[in-house]
């Protein structure tokens, strides 16, 4: 993204954030698996599959735009 300044690409920070958030949400979803929260459609366990999706996307972004690769 920035040849002159050699700044770490913003996509790496995006991946990092998604990856960390994904794990937090996934673990939270697994922890409440047998006692879902008092929300509508809690039986679908959205935190589990949404957290997994964030982890996958975050990993892809982190790997593709990691600082060592782009510099």
């Amino acid at each position, binding site marked *: *993204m*920035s*040849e*002159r*300044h050699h*700044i*770490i690409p*913003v*996509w790496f*920070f*995006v991946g*990092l*954030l*998604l990856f*960390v*958030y994904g794990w*937090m*949400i996934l*673990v*939270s*979803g697994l922890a*409440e698996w047998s006692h*879902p*929260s*008092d*929300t*509508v*459609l*809690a039986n*679908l366990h*959205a*935190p589990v599959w*949404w*957290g997994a999706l*964030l982890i996958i996307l975050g990993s892809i972004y982190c790997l593709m735009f990691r600082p060592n690769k782009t510099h």
Partner: protein
Amino acid sequence: MIALSAMYLADRLVRLSGVDLGIIAIYFALVIGIGFYLKRFATTGEDFFLAGREMTAWVAGLAFVSANLGSLELLGWAGNAYQYGIMSAHWYWVGAIPAMVFLGLVMMPFYYISKTHSVPGYLKLRYGPEASGLSAITFAVMTILMSGVNMYAMALVMRVVLGWDIHFSIWVSSLTVGVYVASGGLFSAIFNEVLQFFLIWFGALLIPILGLVETGGWQGMVARIHQNFPGQDFTHLWGPMRSFADNPMGIHWTGIVFGLGAVQAMGYWTTDFLVVQRVLSAKDVRSAKLAPIIGSFFKMAVPLIVILPGLLGRAVLPMHLLPGGEAGPGQYKYDDVLPLMLARYCGPGLLGLGITALVAGFMAGMAGNVSAFATVWTYDIYRPYIRKSAPDQHYVAMGRWCTIIGLVVSIGTAYLVMKFASMMDYVQALFGFFIAPLFATVLLGMLWKRVTRAAGFWGLLAGVFSSVTMFTLMKLDQRWVAIFALSPIAKGLAQAMYQALWSCVICAVVTVLVSLITKPRRDEELRGLVYSLTDVAHEENASWLQRPVVWGAAALVLFVILQIIFW
């Protein structure tokens, strides 16, 4: 259902768990960390105010859309969708897509080739200091007011959703934005706008997904809305606009096409420096042309996470939401619909992500406003009128101080905004004051070399004055609404559309008339600034996939398809 209703009627919508608070804290730590990291790169004026002009089309395009995806977008338009139905999507489609494509294909080359740092900067080159000064001052005022609106919206959500003190929210968010924008300038603002873009999508997308699961899809949602609100049409874009009385907004299709699409949207997306500044950070002309077009595709998708939750609120919420001024204790306003839907579907973890997305949207909105304000103040007011020749470092330092001062003024504005019943009407009025006439001034200046220096100033002044006059008259006496907005039942948004339309027309007429009686500038002075005197780089040598015009056409085709689907 009983438990859910009880949750809504509590003094706050939700209580955050430890993981939610952790998610919010990580976001704050990351944006401040990024601000400090980027500080070392923001050393020159071009770095601080234009992010070094080295952003790719994708980064500039996402920042371009995200700068407009702040608190007003998320809350205000979800609330409008609840109030007016899918007609609110016009502000994302006819009110954005043609204008974004027009910016990319027609106007961006002039902004970029002239090497201006801002829209008032272009006006200075084209018309001289009078029109530029007027534009810079009005923009600075509007930007700070907008920033205050953002702060107020954020504090409101924090109070409704989390029970946080409204003053605490304003000051904490302001300090955070102040630290990261004053450190990294536009670099920081753009980085956080891209982060915010992803957070908003991943934080809000579950609401329409789970909402449609609950209602049994689009048809199920429509059936529930008809059941809950019989006799009203909330799910058609154009059908209910055959007459003013057929739709809850009280607007005719001419107001949407001409007031919103042809004037207000064109004015906002092509001359509001807050969004144009993001595209000016692009690394070359092709990236600058592509950035708004890339942004237009994402803009078309935003109703999925903003308008659809508002419609789903009509279908599934157990209570009826009320206008801002009518909601009493224990009742909720239209603008509360998004947090209510978030609380409905999102438990621990997801709730933290959704709240973080809202906070990110608010803070990015504020950051966008203060970074644009700092640029216009420093380059278009301070440098030409207060200190003409100073070292570049001086202007960078001024930009940093402006960021802080702008935030302090915004905080004061936020407290003023609390007194207004409807923040969206207020903001639409602001757009009408400044943006609509400015569009006529900039467009005539780009396309017609005969427009003179005096005409640019007097046309813009007449447009702004007429806009303020119309707004004031309509607020003072309802009879003026029937005259200016063509119908006595026109609501606030409809009034703003016609106000924008007439002020743009007045600006254009005055500009043309004054041009015809004053002396034009010489052609040599207008090279690179006017269409007929500028060699705009064409893309004959690029493959068709790399040509902005191809993607612009694709965006317009998709836009038309959406109109037909939801007609």
